[in-house]
């Protein structure tokens, strides 16, 4: 007989060995760290909603590798481009994911990568324009056991 603990069951079931890869987060601590990173990025500015799109699947297929795509409306130009675009996740042991830097040569200001999600959590994107304006977008990605749809 195979003995399955909750942790193993969830990991095996989701195929999300992400929990093993990135570790099990301390919830209170990670929320604090996310806020600290947001505050640092904003530098006292207030982030606007809109203009920035963060796209992720509603439910992760594989917590090890969840597609993520960010884009800011409008083409990059000498006058207007995204200097920094920070992506954070509030349910991983470390909140940081990546910081993208665009230039006037970037064309469309979009980037895509794949990330680890230890569990169901919010992913936050913050974009800072070359003129200092800041935008924010957020999405919830569910990490699930699955197996009963259909």
């Amino acid at each position, binding site marked *: 007989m195979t003995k399955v603990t909750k942790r193993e069951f969830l990991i095996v079931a989701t195929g999300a060995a992400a929990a*093993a*890869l*990135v*570790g099990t987060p301390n919830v209170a601590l990670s929320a604090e760290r996310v806020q600290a990173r947001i505050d640092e990025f904003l530098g006292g500015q207030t982030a606007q909603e809109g203009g920035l799109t963060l796209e992720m699947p509603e439910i992760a297929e594989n917590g*090890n*590798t*969840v597609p993520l*795509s960010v884009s800011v409306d409008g*083409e*990059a130009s000498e006058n207007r481009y995204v200097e920094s675009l920070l992506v954070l*996740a509030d349910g*991983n*042991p*470390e909140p*940081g*994911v*990546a*910081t*993208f*830097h*665009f*230039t006037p*040569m*970037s*064309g*469309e*200001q*979009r*980037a*895509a*990568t*794949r*990330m*680890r999600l230890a569990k169901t959590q919010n992913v936050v994107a913050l974009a800072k324009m070359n003129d200092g304006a800041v935008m924010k977008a957020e999405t919830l990605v569910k990490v699930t056991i699955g197996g009963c749809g259909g």
Partner: protein
Amino acid sequence: MSRPRVKLPKKAAAGEIITIKTLVNHKMESGQRKDKEGNTIPRLIINSFQCNFNGTPVFSCEIEPAVSANPFMEFTAKVPESGEFEFIWKDDNGDVLSTKKKITVA
């Protein structure tokens, strides 16, 4: 860090915006895992990526441990003239990997 792969068109019109995709092999050890003896496995990740065109920065990023193994990056670039894209990955050991791709503007 090995096998850098890049997808972009061979040709473009002047001023055209093209999509670039890159992949590289790297296990992206997060620094959060423990080995069988309970010791933390040290972090070893690709921490930065950069794309230049004819020496001018196009796109770059700082990468943290939450990015998946074998990092994938997709972004766009405006191509003003014929030239060469250069792609550079750096990891925590200070290893650097780079590759180049030419594009012709007709």
